[in-house]
């Protein structure tokens, strides 16, 4: 059981700016994620959401500013097993890749450096435990490319969970997945956040489908337009602007 500490800062983004070949993508972003948060990063296409997430996990280096992970500067951070990351279009992997569901998880579990070395039996138990959490324990032996998009996405969540991360960062995880599967997926994230106290950062353009699970919102349009509590966000002018501005931030299905 992780010690409950609402004030613990897991990610801090400090004055971060980024540009692609001179074209600014992010301007002076300041943002923090605390333990137990379920933060949605929203914004229109090209607003820098993916860029910000990639900077948070060290895939991109900010032109200005710094990122802190678990109180350490990102450059010095070593405990990467604490971080689970699922990139955009993660299920668009090579369809000819021969790999079973269990192998997808085992490859990551055996690769990630952890303080204590895990034995073969323990690895198996962890794989099955993670698959159980996402409701796919019967699919362990199946080829990954025989699963539906929604199931594949769950396998990737299981892969991230197996290393027992303290924070999960996801970039548009449900692109190309049918609507009922999307709802199931976000219910699972909500459950992980509430029951397991897993901190979650989610980049999405469809705020409507996630808004009953998130507790914090960061609204991005190169600059950070809003950053705060979800409940306050819904009453803010910014929310109404977005609602009427045709930004497609809000799902029209509700």
């Amino acid at each position: 059981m992780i010690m409950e500490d609402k004030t613990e800062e897991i990610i801090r983004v400090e004055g971060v700016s980024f540009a692609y070949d001179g074209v600014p993508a992010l301007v002076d972003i300041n943002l923090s994620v605390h333990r137990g948060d379920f933060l949605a990063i929203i914004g229109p296409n090209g607003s820098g959401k993916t860029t910000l997430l990639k900077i948070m996990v060290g895939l991109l280096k900010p032109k200005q500013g710094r990122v802190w992970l678990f109180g350490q500067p990102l450059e010095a951070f070593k405990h990467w097993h604490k971080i689970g990351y699922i990139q955009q279009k993660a299920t668009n992997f090579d369809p000819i890749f021969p790999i079973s569901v269990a192998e997808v998880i085992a490859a990551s579990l055996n690769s990630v450096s952890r303080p204590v070395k895990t034995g073969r039996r323990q690895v198996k138990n962890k794989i099955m435990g993670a698959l159980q959490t996402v409701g796919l324990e019967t699919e362990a032996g199946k080829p990954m490319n025989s699963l539906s998009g929604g199931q594949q996405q769950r396998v990737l969540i299981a892969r991230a969970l197996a290393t027992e991360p303290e924070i999960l960062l996801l970039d548009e995880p449900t692109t190309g997945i049918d609507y009922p599967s999307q709802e199931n997926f976000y219910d699972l994230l909500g459950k992980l956040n509430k029951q397991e106290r897993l901190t979650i950062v989610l980049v999405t353009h469809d705020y409507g489908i996630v808004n009953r699970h998130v507790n914090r919102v960061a609204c991005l349009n190169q600059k950070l337009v809003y950053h705060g509590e979800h409940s306050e966000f819904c009453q803010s002018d910014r929310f109404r602007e977005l609602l009427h501005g045709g930004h497609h931030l809000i799902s029209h299905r509700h």
Partner: protein
Amino acid sequence: MNGDLIFSGLFLRALLAGGGLALACGLLGVFLVLRRDAMISHGLSHVAFAGVALGLALNLMPVIFSIVVCLVGSLLILKLKQAARLPGDTAIALLSSGGLALAVFLMSIKKDFGAELMAYLFGDILAIAPSEVYLALGLAVVVTAGILLNLSRLVFMTFDREAALVSGLGLGRLDRLLVMMTAMTIVLGLRIVGLLLVTGLTVIPAASALQLARNFKQALLVSSLFSLLSILGGIVLAYVFNLPASAAIIFLALLIFILSHLLKR
């Protein structure tokens, strides 16, 4: 077939060296094909040619020269791919033409390469010397161990590079490992199937295995098995029917690919 011939040192040596090569090619090939790096082995075989020509020109062990030249070439390809922002296989084309040009130049200096050079171009496994068998087995052990000891990391990186990067894996080290093992496998294949056909061995058995395998373990096993079947079968066919071994090996590998492809359907 004459029993004496089967157990002759010549034949046994060929089988031993061939078996080592088969295992290395079978395992490595799966990664090369899935990483879309099949052409790296093609490029490196041309670089190895420069090493052979250098060794022959200096009358020193061509295999040793090719190992060194090939290892340097493999790291250069990797560096060029990353640093020069060259798209796709352009870096490989640069290096392989450079290697070939160097080989042609060296050959023009010393003109009487003759049969020796042919043995490296097309392979001559039935004439392999005991010392070369030891070297082949040594290289095979290094490549096989390199892959098996890093298996999970290599699978993770090949399947999902971005997630592997975020998990803190040193991907630069793993990229170098793979490309250096490719270089060693190419050199290992020099005397067996020759420079011109060694790419086939690193690619065809893996491509066949991918037609059938449902998981990664199967892919590695089936690829190694097909590789073994092609090389050992090819050597036997060559021995019995007096054919060029390299051609027999590649024909057999291609036949297995066609059968696997038909079986998949």
